[in-house]
């Protein structure tokens, strides 16, 4: 009975129409109220054809300008990178250094002596003339010991070289008159002549100031000879 009851109820309601149950129901009014609650449809904008062409042209110009700007920016960045790389002390660097080459040349330099000093003869002296020469050398890295760069020698340094010792005739101050005897002696023994001259030089240099007169006499005598 129960199953039949439910089946009969179901069949009866399946074939029912809304007009039979609720005759005054206004579908259109219900739809108007319902459509107001529904979200509005997205309206599609109709774009004319010439607008698309204009948009294409504008888009092309924009893309071109952006591309050019991008390329220029990239060039600037690359230049900056190159400069940065050049500043890095990675690659070996060559710098010009100067070196000095000495050339000797004989010049006559007057010997200036103090008044108190004994007069000396003019002697030929060797003068070293400095010449600059450029030498290329690699520079050591920074992290290593700092590179020592010799400064350029701009001044000519004078090195006084000793002139060859000339023969000095040994003369004893007290035995000037015995010159003939000493000459004869040296002629017989040259080694003795040398020893005697050396002794005479030393004695002249060590001559005290009180004996200046004697020394001048000695030099005058030597010149005259």
């Amino acid at each position, binding site marked *: 009975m*129960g199953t039949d*009851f439910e089946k009969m109820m179901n069949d009866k*309601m399946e074939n029912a129409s809304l007009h039979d149950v*609720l005759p005054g129901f206004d579908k259109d009014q*219900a739809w108007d*109220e319902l*459509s107001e609650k*529904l979200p509005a449809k997205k309206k599609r904008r109709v774009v004319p054809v010439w607008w698309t062409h204009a948009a294409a042209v504008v888009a092309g110009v924009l893309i071109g300008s952006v591309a050019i700007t991008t390329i220029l920016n990239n060039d600037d960045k690359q230049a900056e990178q190159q400069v940065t790389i050049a500043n890095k002390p990675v690659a070996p660097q060559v710098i010009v250094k100067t070196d000095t080459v000495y050339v000797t040349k004989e010049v006559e330099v007057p010997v200036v002596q103090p008044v108190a000093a004994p007069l000396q003869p003019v002697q030929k002296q060797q003068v070293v003339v400095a010449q600059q020469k450029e030498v290329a050398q690699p520079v050591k890295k920074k992290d290593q010991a700092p590179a020592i760069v010799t400064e350029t020698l701009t001044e000519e340094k004078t090195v006084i070289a000793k002139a060859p010792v000339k023969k000095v005739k040994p003369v004893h101050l007290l035995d000037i008159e015995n010159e003939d005897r000493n000459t004869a002696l040296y002629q017989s023994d040259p080694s003795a002549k040398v020893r005697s001259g050396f002794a005479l030089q030393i004695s002249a240099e060590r001559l005290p100031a009180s004996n200046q007169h004697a020394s001048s006499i000695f030099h005058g005598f030597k010149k005259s000879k």
Partner: protein
Amino acid sequence: MTLRTTHTINEQELIASCIDGERIAQRQLYDKYIDFMMLTCLRYIPNAEDAREVMMDGFCNCFKNLQKFEYRGDGSLKAWMKKIMINQCLMFLRKKDNILAGANELDYASDVALDNDAIGRMSVKELMALIHSLPDGYRTIFNLYTFEGMTHKEIGVLMNISDNTSKSQLHKAKALLQKTILDHSKNN
């Protein structure tokens, strides 16, 4: 208006148009199912105005959630929309009052011998009135079991009651309805 007059597109195309927001397609879908959905709401909600409001809210939910619907053949859209309407009705009843409140206070008659032609002689309007006379709890469980074909387990989950409560409520609803129909047939 072309869609309303020709009816040349199938249901899937109609659904796609409704998802796109085509008012004409939505109106066509509304016209197609308005009677069935309104009757469904009227079975659960006796007041016609309340049923109308609930039906409109149900349609609105259908259109808004139509992109989630998966078409599985003829009748799938109708069943999906009907489910939405029933949920809308249950939500309305839950807001209004406790559905099961007062159901146990009624004395229900035991099973009565009901003439098979008694229901056939009644009109749909009279039958609907008798259903409306049931308490909300009885009526809801009777509708879910008789017209929607749900099991007691499904009804228990949907209404948050036990299976036995659903069975008991259904038994009382049927007995009361049969007695009412019998009295109605005797009076007429």
